[in-house]
Structure formats: C-alpha cells, structure tokens
C-alpha cells in the first residue's frame, strides 16, 4: 500500500499549523475515547454476532479484560456456544405494562469498566424507561468513558442508506444508526456471506426460528435483494477504507491529490420532500468527501406556518445533524437571496434543492425557488432533487388570522362600498381621475390594516365598481373611451403592488417585533446579570427570566465540592421566583438526570435525546472553562418546549447565566487571592518588625556578656562589670516583654479566643496592675479615681489586667520620668468608661487611630524600648469584650498629654 502513497512534502513545505492542531486534537480525542469496532453485514444472519464473539474469545484468550454486554441470540445455538467462558453482564430488566423486557445495562457496564464490551445490534431502539432512546447512544457513553466497544450493524440500518435499502427491498427499517457514528468507528470489519449461502442458512433455520423463516424468505430475503444489499455493504466498507486512507494522508502531511474545499449546502423546507433531499445531500457529500451544511431560511411568510410544518422543518434539521451536517438557521426576506449569500460566504461549491411538485401555471406566474437560485448561483452548481409522483405534498397551511378570513373580506368590501358612496357624492364635483385616487386610498388602507388578500380584493372590486358606476356609459362594464382601459390597468396594477408591499411591510414588522422581543429579553437579562455579584442571586435572576417567558417551575442545581449536584431547596414557580418560594421536591430520578447533564455537559430530560421521559428538562450551565451547575425547568405546558425559538431563547438565557456565574466565581477566587496577598504582606511586615526588635536586645546581651567573659589582662573593673550586667538584665527583660506581647497577640488574633468572663471589681485589677508595675512607677504620682459603687465588670480578668497593664506601661514609657498618670472610671450611657491619662508629649496629631495598628509607636524613632504591639493588643482585648478604645490628646491649656479611653458594655449584675 505504501507504494501507492504520494510523496512526502519537502522540508520547506511546512505543515499548516491549523491542520497540525486539528490532527493533534484528533489524536488526543482518540486517546481518551474508547475505540469502536463494527462488525458490518449486508443482512441479518450473515454471522456478525458470531464473528464478534469469536473475536471476543480471541481477546479473552490473550487475557484482555473483555465482557459481553448484550447479545441477541435469536435462538442460534452455535452463537450461544461461543458465549461459554466469556463474562456476560446480566441485562437490565424493565417492566413495561406487565411485560418484562431486557435491555443492555449501560450503568453495569460503566461500573464494571472493562477494556472491551461487546454490544450486539447498534441500531436497536431501547424500550421506554431506558436511559437513552437508542442503543448507539449507550455505546457512545461507553466510548466517552474510555471503554472499547465491539458491536454489529447491518447495512440497512445506516441512516443515509436507509431509504436506498427501502427502495431495494420495499421494507422500511425504523431502527437506524446516524452515519457519523458509523463514520467515527475506528474499525469496520465486513462480515460477508454470499447470498446463496445465507439463503441456505436461512432455510436450515439457523437465522430465525422456523415459523418466521417462510415469511422472511418471501419478503426481505429474496436473492435479488441480498445481492443488492451485499453490494451496498461492500461499497460502504470500501468508502470507509478510502476515508481511512485520506485521514492517514492528512495525518502524515501528504499532499492531497484532489481539489480541496468541496462543500455541499442543502436547503431544507417544511415539505416532506426535504427528508429525501437531506439524505441525497449526505450521499453526495460523502461521495465528494466534502463537508455539508443544512440550512433553513425563515422568511416572514414561513413564520406563519402551522406547527406541524414547523415540526417537520425541525425534524429535517435534526436528521441532517444526525447525518453529520452542520446546520444553520437563516432569516430574511428572500429564500434564494439569503441562501446564495450564505453559500458564497461559506465557500459552498454545490447547492442541493428539492423541487416540490406544483401546478405548472404556478411556475409561469412566479419563478420557483429553483429558478431563482439557478439564476443567482453563478459558479455554484445547483442540484435539484425531484419529488416522486405518488408522494403527497401537503402545502403549508396558512395560520388562521385573528379575525377569520371571511370577516376580513367583508370588512374590505365594506371599505369599497363606503368609498363608492363617497364617490357618488363627489361625482358631480370632481374629475374621474380623482375618484381613482380615492379608490387607491382604500386599497392602501386595507393593505395596511387588514392584509394582502383583502387588499387585492379591494383593488379588483374598485376597478369593477369604478368602471360600472362612474365611467361612461354608466351602469355598464362597457367603456366608451379606450383610454379608460389604461386607467383600469394602472389602477389595478398600482392597487396590487401597494397591497403586496403594504402586507410585506406588515409581516416584516411582525418578524422584527418578535426578534426585538427576544433581543429585549436577552438584554434585560444580561443587564440584571451584570449587576449581581453572587452566584445564588444570578441563579434566581435567570430563573425569574425563564419563568417570565414560560410558565412552570424551575430550579438551579449547584454542585458541592466533589461535583455532586445538591438537591435545590425548591423549584420556583413564576409567582414565587423571588421570595418565599413553595417547596417542590426534585424527584430522585430527576436529580440523577440533572447529574448526568452536569457530568456530560449536555442537556437531558424532556425534549432531549437523554431520558426524554422526564417531566423536566435539565440544561447544563456550561461556561468557558467548566460546567457551573444545572438549570431544571418543568414547564406547566410541556409542548411549549417544542417550539425551536422557545428552546433557543431559554438556552440563550442559560448560556448567559453560565457566563455570568463563571465571571462571579472567578472574581471571588481573585478576591480571595487578593486577601491572601494582603495578609501575607502583613505577616512579612510583622516578621521584619519582630526580627528587628529581637536583634537589638540580643546584640546588647551578647556584646555585654562576651566582654564579661573576656579574661585578657587589664580587663574591666568592678564598676564596669556592674554596668554591663545591668545592661544584660534590662535587655533580657525587654526580650521578655516582647515575647509576652507576641504571645498575647497570637492568642488574640488566632480567632478561637474564649473569654473566661468573671465578675470582677475594676479596682482589684487596677491594684494588681499597679503592683506589677510598681518598680517602673517609682517617683510618679499615680491617682486612681474609681467610684466605690462602680458596678462589677463581667470580663476575662487576666485579659483586662493585660489591657490595663499595657495602657499604664505605655503611659510610663512614653512620658518624662516623674510626670503624673491618672486612671479614672465612670458609668456613662450604659457603659463603663475607663481612661488612662498621662502628661507627656501626647499622640502625634492625626495618628490617634493609627497608634492601635500593629508595629506603630508614638514616635517614629523613639529611644524608648518596647514594641509597638502593646496598643494593638489593648485594642484587640477591648474589642473581644464588645467595647471600643480611642486615643486623644489634651491641649496644653488643659495640661497636655494623651488619654486612652476604653468603654465596656455594662452587664446585668450577678445575684448578690
């Protein structure tokens, strides 16, 4: 094979980075996903299951961890024998109207998590109650979980070949597998059996139980059918080999030999033909190895389609999506114009259209879409798929207007009558041409107010009445002057044109209004979301907006730290979205669905592919980086969710909310980081301050003691010795104070401080503090003014002692020796106020608040020893007791000095 490969690129031909990226992504995704191997056959009975199990046995013999997830035995004995020795998962049993059905158990397989799982019949439709409607979705989940899957598929189950097979065999198969699933398989092994042998096996009863065989032989298993199906299967496999080769070439930077950039665009409409067109487009795209886009152009006229037709459009788009197409919704005035513009923009090379059968006169009257597109398409090839003769084409039915058409026409007739009466009055006084103007005015009025049809009627009626009543000869349709024929012609033409434009304008306005409404709702939501800084609040906002649009209940489910969604407090109803919401428990199953939606970042529940039997739909809040949570919506009228615009709007709401929530969460994270940095700064400042305050006394102690230990001759005398020892003693005390302060501060700021409150007389604590500071206070006048009837304080006595110690110590440290210190207490406004006043230089002006900050000293480079923590400890103690502390200066007129005053709440006194 390698001999056939084109040459590798020369080194200067660099690999396109985009291509490289795409290749890496492919390889990455492949590494994470499990590998899918399909045993592919032309018809039932060719031996796919047999081949699959044989391969499984081979792997098991090589000690690969392989289990059989589900095999359809059809009573085939030889297949059953192959199961011996293989691990078989028990099937899931579902009760359906009293009948027990068995299904492949996805959860069991996920839980068992082997290397490989064998799951028969990929196209199988699951019974109601299973997680996914289709087995291929189960398989998809296994692959996502990284489990390899062996499975079987028949050619007639491939979505895009479905109708081809139906044409060959006359049997329409309902169970299909999307082409993208088949295409994405890592390996497809064709299990081939010549038709004669298959028929032989069938007759021997090896395929079906005997009673079914006869029926099968006459319908599906005719030799001609089998030959055609075999050919189809062979060709499909060959196509895949081709694709594999192409991927190989891309992966290995081999120059493509074919023209690049084929892209197919298919136009989808509401008519049933579209389904065929979609399948045809897929076949063409596959044959061309081209990407393809399915497009629906919504024109004002199409917005009025009945619901059934809209559903068909949606179904067709969905079909295209399952077939691997990219889909797009366009809106505009003209289908042809929008389509061509879009095709040009996307570099489309081929457009595929359906040609709906319609009367030939219709074509003459107005060019069909096909004609219009063919005319504008230029270089783009246009393919037209014709409708079949027998196929029913139901014309889109117009939505009934608010007023019935009969009423509308009656009203417009009344307008014509009124104008005619007016003309009758004016006939004698004005020219005939001006009467024409009046009739035109009527046409314009009706076109603008009532609609297109009625205004056309008005135009026709006007001409008739004008001719009959006013143009001589009167009361006859005959015309005396041939010139009037021009008048009639122009009058009719003008009327029709006006009615056309007026009606179009009206419809455009309606479309614009609908769009405007949506834009406004989204704008209102985004504006509200921008104002909030809280995830819960954001959740409430989006729920309020969703419920304003669709009645029902909604809830936001957010995950805990381990990614498990938490049961929300309630589902909110419209009336109660903001306050006292009614409790509405989320059923246990629903929480599971929500969790699935969260884990897979895909919507689940009603109107989705996953667990569609639920009452509610669960939409993941997918943000850029992760899934924030899930929004559950249980509409009062579930059919409201069927409307695509409705779902689109809700999904837009959810997306906006997700982005907003992520923004808030990121901001919170950033803020937390900011706080951390701030406290880190504080710690560093504290550390540098402490290390300075520790080193200074240590330096003196080491210096003094090393001098004392020095035994060199002519050493120090007794007096010097005493001075040095005094210095060591003082500095050691300073260190002691420092350590005490640090311990206090650590205790106070550790955050888990328990106050041991007791009933204490203030004077007792003051007395203890003064006693402790006795030596430092020698020579000072200390006055204490505590009223004898001062109530007891309910405080932590040790801490309050420390507080007063720090204040008095501070007062003696920063004031000249011998100056007085005054301690006073009183009861003021329900508080006990205690003050310590000195007669020193006071607190630096403007620093009254800052002195309580850590590392702050009264004077920047004071010679006083100590440590700036004393006052911050005092503050922490006061605040721990629920009080306040302030510093202030006295003016020199009042003796100067600083006063530190703290207040403590006055507690109820203890029982005497």
């Amino acid at each position, binding site marked *: 094979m390698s001999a056939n490969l084109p040459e590798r690129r020369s080194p200067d031909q660099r690999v396109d980075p985009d291509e490289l990226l795409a290749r890496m992504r492919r390889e990455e995704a492949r590494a994470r996903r499990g590998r899918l191997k399909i045993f592919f056959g032309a018809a039932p009975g060719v031996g796919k299951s047999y081949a699959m199990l044989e391969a499984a046995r081979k792997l098991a013999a090589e000690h690969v961890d392989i289990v059989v997830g589900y095999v359809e035995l059809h009573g085939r004995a030889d297949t059953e024998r192959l199961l011996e020795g293989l691990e078989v998962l028990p099937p899931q049993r579902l009760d359906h109207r009293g009948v027990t059905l068995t299904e492949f158990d996805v959860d069991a397989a996920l839980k068992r998590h082997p290397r490989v799982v064998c799951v028969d019949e990929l196209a199988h439709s699951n019974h109601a109650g299973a997680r996914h409607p289709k087995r291929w979705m189960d398989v998809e989940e296994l692959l996502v979980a990284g489990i390899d899957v062996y499975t079987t598929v028949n050619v007639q189950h491939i979505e895009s070949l479905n109708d081809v097979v139906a044409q060959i065999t006359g049997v329409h198969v309902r169970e299909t597998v999307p082409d993208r699933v088949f295409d994405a398989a890592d390996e497809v092994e064709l299990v081939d059996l010549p038709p004669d042998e298959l028929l032989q096996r069938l007759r021997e009863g090896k395929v079906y139980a005997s009673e079914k065989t006869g029926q099968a032989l006459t319908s599906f298993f005719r030799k001609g059918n089998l030959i055609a199906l075999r050919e189809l299967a062979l060709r499909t496999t060959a196509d895949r080999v081709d694709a594999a080769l192409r991927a190989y070439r891309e992966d290995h930077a081999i120059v493509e030999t074919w023209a690049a950039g084929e892209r197919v665009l298919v136009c989808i409409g509401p008519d049933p033909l579209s389904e065929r067109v979609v399948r045809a487009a897929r076949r063409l795209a596959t044959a061309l190895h081209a990407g393809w886009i399915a497009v629906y152009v919504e024109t004002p006229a199409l917005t009025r389609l009945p619901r059934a037709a809209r559903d068909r459009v949606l179904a067709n788009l969905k079909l295209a999506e399952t077939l691997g197409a990219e889909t797009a919704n366009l809106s505009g005035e003209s289908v042809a114009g929008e389509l061509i513009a879009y095709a040009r923009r996307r570099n489309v090379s081929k457009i595929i259209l359906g040609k709906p059968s319609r009367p030939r006169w219709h074509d003459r009257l107005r060019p069909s879409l096909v004609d219009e597109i063919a005319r504008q398409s230029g270089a783009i090839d246009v393919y037209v798929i014709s409708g079949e003769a027998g196929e029913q084409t139901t014309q889109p039915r117009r939505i009934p207007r608010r007023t019935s058409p009969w009423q509308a026409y009656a009203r417009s007739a009344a307008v014509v009558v009124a104008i005619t009466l007016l003309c009758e009055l004016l006939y004698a006084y004005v020219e005939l041409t001006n009467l024409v103007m009046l009739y035109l005015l009527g046409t314009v009025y009706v076109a603008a107010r009532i609609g297109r049809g009625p205004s056309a009627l008005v135009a026709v009626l006007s001409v008739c009445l004008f001719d009959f009543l006013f143009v001589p000869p009167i009361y006859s349709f005959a015309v005396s002057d041939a010139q009037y024929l021009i008048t009639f012609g122009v009058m009719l033409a003008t009327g029709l044109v006006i009615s056309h434009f007026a009606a179009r304008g009206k419809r455009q306005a309606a479309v614009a209004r609908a769009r405007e409404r949506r834009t406004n709702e989204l704008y209102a939501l985004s504006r509200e979301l921008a104002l909030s800084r809280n995830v819960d609040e954001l959740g409430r906002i989006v729920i309020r907006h969703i419920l304003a649009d669709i009645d029902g209940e909604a809830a936001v489910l957010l995950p805990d730290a381990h990614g498990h969604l938490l049961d929300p407090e309630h589902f909110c109803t419209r009336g109660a979205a903001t306050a006292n919401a009614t409790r509405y428990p989320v059923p246990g199953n629903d929480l599971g669905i929500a969790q699935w939606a969260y884990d897979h970042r895909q919507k689940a529940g009603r109107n989705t592919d996953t667990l569609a039997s639920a009452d509610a739909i669960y939409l993941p809040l997918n943000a850029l980086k992760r899934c924030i949570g899930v929004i559950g919506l249980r509409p009062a009228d579930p059919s409201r969710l069927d409307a695509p615009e409705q779902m689109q709007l809700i999904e837009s709401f959810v997306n906006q909310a997700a982005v907003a929530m992520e923004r808030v969460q990121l901001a919170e994270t950033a803020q937390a980081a900011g706080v951390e940095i701030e406290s880190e700064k504080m710690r560093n400042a504290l550390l540098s301050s402490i290390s300075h305050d520790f080193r200074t006394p240590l330096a003196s102690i080491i210096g003094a003691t090393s001098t004392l230990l020095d035994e060199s001759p002519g050493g120090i005398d007794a007096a010097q010795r005493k001075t040095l020892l005094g210095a060591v003693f003082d500095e050691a005390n300073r260190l002691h104070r420092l350590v005490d302060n640090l311990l206090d501060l650590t205790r106070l700021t550790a955050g888990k401080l328990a106050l041991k409150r007791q009933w204490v007389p203030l004077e007792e604590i003051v007395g203890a503090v003064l006693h402790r500071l006795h030596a430092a206070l020698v020579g000072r006048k200390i006055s*204490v003014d505590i009223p004898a009837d001062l109530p007891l304080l309910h405080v932590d006595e040790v801490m309050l002692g420390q507080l007063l110690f720090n204040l008095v110590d501070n007062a003696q440290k920063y004031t000249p020796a011998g100056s007085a210190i005054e301690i006073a207490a009183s009861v003021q406004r329900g508080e006990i106020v205690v003050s310590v006043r000195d007669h020193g230089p006071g607190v630096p002006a403007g620093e009254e608040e800052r002195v309580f900050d850590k590392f702050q000293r009264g004077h920047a480079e004071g010679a006083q020893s100590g440590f700036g923590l004393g006052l911050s400890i005092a503050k922490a103690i006061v605040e721990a007791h629920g009080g306040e502390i302030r510093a202030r200066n006295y003016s020199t007129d009042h003796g100067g000095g600083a006063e530190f005053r703290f207040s403590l709440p006055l507690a109820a006194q203890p029982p005497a």
Partner: protein
Amino acid sequence: MNANGPRATVLVIEDDPQIARFLATALDAHGYALHVAANGHDGLREAALRQPDIVIVDLGLPDISGLEVITRLREWFTRSIIVLSARNRETDKVGALDLGADDYLTKPFGIGELLARLRVAERHRAKNENADPEARIEAGDLVIDLAARRVQRDGADVHLTPIEYRLLAALARHRGKVLTHRQLLTEVWGAAHVESPHYLRIYLRALRHKIEADPAQPKHLLTEVGVGYRFADD
C-alpha cells in the same frame, strides 16, 4: 549565709539545664543544700531519698506532668512545694495550688522573687513544726489579734463582719502565700460555695475599703490576677 543553723534542703525538679544551673548557683550562694532532678520520675525518687524541706517543680516536665508530680508527692510529702510555670497558664497555676502546691513562680523570675518564696516556705515549715498557732499578726499599720478576733488599723479598731474577719484571718494565717479562689471560698464559706467566686470579690473589696489606705493601690491584700489573693509579706 544565715547563722540560724543549717539552711533548708531544696529539691529542684526541672528539665531545662540552664535554669537548673542558674538555680543551683543562686541557691548554693545563699546557703541552701540543693538536689536536682531532670524529670518527674527522678524527682519523685529523689524526694523520697533526700527528704527535702522544699520541692521546686516545673509544670512542663518531659515524662509526667508537674501536676501529677504534685499529686503523687502530696500522698506523703507535707512540706512546701513551689511551682514554676509560664505566664498565660493561670489555669495550670490554680490547678497546681488546688492540688496542694504552696506557691508559684512565673518564669522568667529573678533571684529576689525566688528567695522571697523560699523565705515564706521556710517560715511555714518552722510554724508547722512548732505546731503553735500564731496569736497575733502584725503587718505595717495593721494588727490582727487572732485570739481576740480583733483587727486594728493605726491603733484604732476596725469593725469587720464575721465573713470579712474570717477572710482576713485566712489570708493572714498564710501570710505571703497565695490562696486560690477555691481555697478561700472553701475555707470561709464552705465547700458548697466554690462556684460563686463573685461573693469572694465583693467581700474582698469591702475588706480593702476598711483596712487599706487606698483600696486601688493595696498594701496588704494583693490580687494575683487569675489565680487568687495573697496577704503581703513584708
């Protein structure tokens, strides 16, 4: 060195070698006979062996807690126990005192404080050996006549309520020694009132107002914050 016969024997149970060294040097210089144990078990053995007059116990020992050493010592040891403890450990101090320790010293301490505690301990030892209760206590301006249940300040009678008197007498009998709230409550009010310490504080305040010149700067009735009260020893 004191001339009044041999000085007391002191056992120091302390695991920190620097503090042990400092105590050894200081006490030796002041004429005490000293033994040192580096952990609780050694300490208990040494106490039994040496029969010291005073035991100094550090509350933070490496093997068993100082509180346990006190409990086990008090099973047979009747002489003085002085506890060494860090600041902010008021609960430990109170616990040690309630278990039977006689006094405490907060680390770091100077030699002056240590000697004062030892002096008080020695006096109580002498008093206990004499087994002869003091009849009269004189402290500065204050005279407490325990026999006559009379208190005089500056020669004038001070009128005290019975509880105030009992409180003052209890503190004065243990002059220089700290008494915990619990000890005082038990001694004055009885065991039933140990959970109502504010009684004690109210009575003590009243007492101060009667016998102190400045109740906020007392000379006799000193507060040991968080621990208890001490009658000042001159």
